Every structure is written in C-alpha cells, then in structure tokens.
C-alpha cells in the first residue's frame, strides 16, 4: 500500500555502508565517491540530486552491480551485490544508445523478458509485451523502429523494457534530462504513478532539484569532489502530486529553498 509519508514499508531494500570508489592509478588516482552510507526502503522513491562531477552516474552503476566499490558494502534485500542482476533494472540517460535500433518497439520491450532467469514461457511473453506497451502508451508504435520515434517515446520504450524485466529495484540515470519540458512532466507523472502501483523501489538520479523534490519520497543531495552526502530530506507532500499545485505547495518551496544553496554552492 502507498504510505502517505515515507512511501516505504519500513524494511531496507537497499543498504549502502561506507561505500567509496576511486578511479585512476598512482598520483592521478582521484576519489569519485567517499564514504557513502544510506538505506532505501522497499517501495520508496529515492531521488539523488547533485551537481555534475559528484559521481551520480558512478553511484548508479555501483547499485546496478556494473562496478564494484573499493571499500564498503552494498546489500540488496540483505544479500551483497556481487554483480548485475535482473532484479535491478537500469534506465540509461542516453536512450538513443540504450535501445536496439534493429528491433521494433515491441522487440525492444521483449528483450527484458529474454535471457536466463526470465520467468515467462514464450506464449505469455507476447501478452506481457502487449500489456507493457499499453501501460507506457506505446501500442500504436509497437512495430516502429526506435529511429522513427521522438526522444520521449524512446525513453518510454526503455522504461517499458525495464519493467518487462520485473525488477524489484528500478535505477534511473537522469532519464528525462534530454527531453523537453512538457514531455518531461508527463513522463514524471507516469513514472511516479507506475512506481507506486507496481510497488517498485526506485532510485532516481537527476541534477534538477525541483524534479527530485517533485518525484521523491526522500531526496539525498550529493556534494562533489569527492561525491558525498551533503543533505538528506524527507518530502512530506502527499501523492498523487500535481505539476502545478505541488510545485506551488509551501512544503515544496520550503524544501527548494533549503536545498538550493547546497547545490548552488558547488
């Protein structure tokens, strides 16, 4: 069920403790992330916001299991992250390079249902793909190729593919950053609704503070060089939220004022 305040169920779906990562060799070794610790509750929508260079994307790749930390531990449902898993789907920022250009929209969504650990037998896949296309309002372009779609539609395809994976954790890396304002708003609302309806735990990365507050049950602000936690706030604005009213809500504005300085200061 949707909880009005935290949005989570109280148990940690994801735990980071003392996570650090550095790139480079010898004297040129540079810390990217330093001593990061936080929990994400099951069903929670957590937004990570930070200036460029704060290691946001690296952090998401760590959560996905695509990179390993130098120090500290990442646990998902109390099991250490050893590598990528179908339980953690990642929505890449650059949708144009995250879809298979030679597959149709339906084919790209079906990719999330293929492979080892895919839970559906062949006959049910088509049905599931059709459902997901319906959910993401893509049915009418099911047979189109990605190059024939707008950026917003391509990002919908990517989200549909991630949902097809039936992950428990949805990781999004500035998914709407390259989209125009109207498309971004409608995708924000759809994502927020979907995450709650499907009970997904979401980690959403953005450099847009307003987007973070608007979407998140909680917002963590990262500081750069090296990436570390600068602030953490609970967003006590009930859902469903609205593009106009929520953004004019006193609580929204207060959070925006409180966090704005942290981001501008870097």
């Amino acid at each position: 069920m949707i909880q009005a305040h935290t949005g989570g169920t109280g148990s940690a779906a994801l735990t980071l403790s003392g996570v650090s990562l550095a790139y480079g060799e010898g004297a040129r070794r540079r810390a990217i992330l330093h001593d990061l610790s936080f929990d994400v509750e099951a069903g929670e929508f957590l937004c990570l916001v930070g200036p460029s260079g704060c290691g946001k994307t690296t952090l998401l790749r760590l959560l996905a299991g695509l990179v390993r930390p130098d120090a500290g531990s990442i646990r998902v449902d109390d099991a250490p992250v050893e590598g990528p898993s179908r339980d953690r789907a990642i929505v890449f920022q650059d949708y144009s390079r995250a879809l298979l250009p030679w597959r149709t929209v339906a084919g790209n969504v079906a990719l999330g249902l293929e492979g080892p650990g895919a839970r559906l037998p062949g006959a049910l896949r088509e049905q599931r793909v059709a459902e997901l296309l319906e959910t993401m309002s893509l049915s009418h372009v099911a047979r189109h190729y990605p190059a024939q779609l707008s950026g917003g539609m391509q990002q919908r395809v990517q989200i549909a593919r991630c949902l097809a994976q039936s992950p428990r954790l949805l990781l999004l890396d500035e998914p709407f950053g390259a989209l125009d304002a109207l498309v971004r708003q409608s995708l924000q609302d759809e994502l927020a609704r979907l995450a709650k309806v499907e009970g997904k735990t979401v980690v959403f990365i953005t450099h847009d503070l307003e987007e973070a507050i608007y979407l998140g049950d909680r917002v963590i602000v990262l500081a750069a060089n090296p990436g570390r936690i600068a602030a953490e706030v609970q967003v006590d604005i009930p859902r469903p939220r609205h593009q106009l009213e929520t953004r004019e809500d006193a609580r929204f504005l207060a959070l925006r004022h409180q966090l704005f300085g942290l981001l501008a200061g870097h």
Partner: protein
Amino acid sequence: MSLSRTPGRLRARLGEAAAALAFALVLLLLWHTVAAARLVSPVFLPAPARVFDELGLQLREGSLLEPLSATTWRMALGWALASCAGVCLGGLIGASPPARSYLSPMLEFMRPLPASAIIPVAILFFGLSDRMSIAVIAFGSVWPVLLATVHGFASVEPQLLELASSLRMRPGAILRKLVLPGAMPDIIAGMRVSLAIALILAVVTEMQASQVGLGQNILLAQRSYRSAELYAGILVLGVLGFALNQTLALAEARLLRWRR
C-alpha cells in the same frame, strides 16, 4: 518517416531513373556515331548494333550460358568463402582488443596486396584448376569483409553491453542479439566491396588459366579480332556486375530497414 511511398517520392525516383537511362542512350548514340563515321576501325570498335546482334545470337544459340554460369559460379563460391571466413575471422579479431592490436599491422600489410600477385602461388599449389580460381578469388576478396567485420565488432555500443550484463545475457546471446546485428551494416558494406573484387578476380583467373568463362571469351575474341564478341563479353560482364550489386543493395535495404 517513410512508412509509405509518397507519390512525390515515387515521381522523383522515376525521374532519376529516366535521367540515368537517357544518359546511357546518349553514350550509346555517341558510340554509334563514332563507329558509323569510322573514326576508329571496326576491328577495334564495332558498331553497337553489331555487338547487340552478336549478343542476340549467343543468347539464341545458348552459347552464352556456359561461360556465364562458369564465371558466376566461381565468383559466387569464392565470394561466399571469403564472406564466411571474413565474418568469422573478423569477428574473432574484432571482439578481442589484444588480437586486434597484434594482428592489425599484418592485416594492413595483406589488404593492399594485389590479389593477382598471388595467382602464380595459387597455380603452384592447385594447378590450372577451378580450385586455383576459387582460392584466388576468396583470398583477394576476403579483406574488405574481414576488415569491415573487425570494425563492426569493435565498435559495439558500450552501453548496450552494460545493458546485456544487467540482463545477465550469455555470451552467445550477446553475439546473436547485440554484436552481430550491430555489425551488420559494416559487414554488408564490406561484402559489397568484396563482391566487386570477386568478379574482377574471376575474370582475371580465367584469362590466366584458360578456364571456360566470360574472361576467357573476351581474351579469345580479342586474339582473333572478333571485336563484336569482345564487346559483347564486356557488356555481359557489366550487366552481371550491375545485377549482382543491385541484388545486394536490395538485400541491404531489407536487412537494414531499421536504419530508415
């Protein structure tokens, strides 16, 4: 988006085709004028009408069939071998950065080597046989498809590989679903270049090794001053090359229709 051919596009394409045809007719007319005015001796340059008569005769008698099919068969076999070997080897090399850095200099050395230079070597090994021809064709035409495949395999979108690992795709599935389709535009482009080389080498090896084929026909016609036959042979080779390339272009448009 061109989901349906619009009348405007169709008209534009018809216009282009008409212009191309008109250009060919102008060349033909020029040829006819030069020949009719006897600017060049008919022993060297027969009138186009004589060439077409000769072609018609060969078609009616069926004497064109054997050399045409012999040349096409050798070329196709050599090209198919080259394509298979090129894609397999190119894939192995392209997928492995160390292999790429070790082997690239050697490939760059072999690639510009004129394939006709290895004809004597091939004759040494295989004699004046079909196997010699096919070996030379395969060796000579393997390079474009090989190097294109190396490039295609090496330039897989890294983000797609991350996607594959987050979906826990197995290596075989990654090859089949990501790498091979991603490299397909390069592979097909390489195969088209290879096909042109294969046709050239089919003709050259026939001339060198006196094998039945269009190349040998041309050579024999030239030696006995049967100029209409000579030009008919060249015309057939031109049509053959054109038809093969068009077929591949069609296959390309079909296989790569996702590229718009």
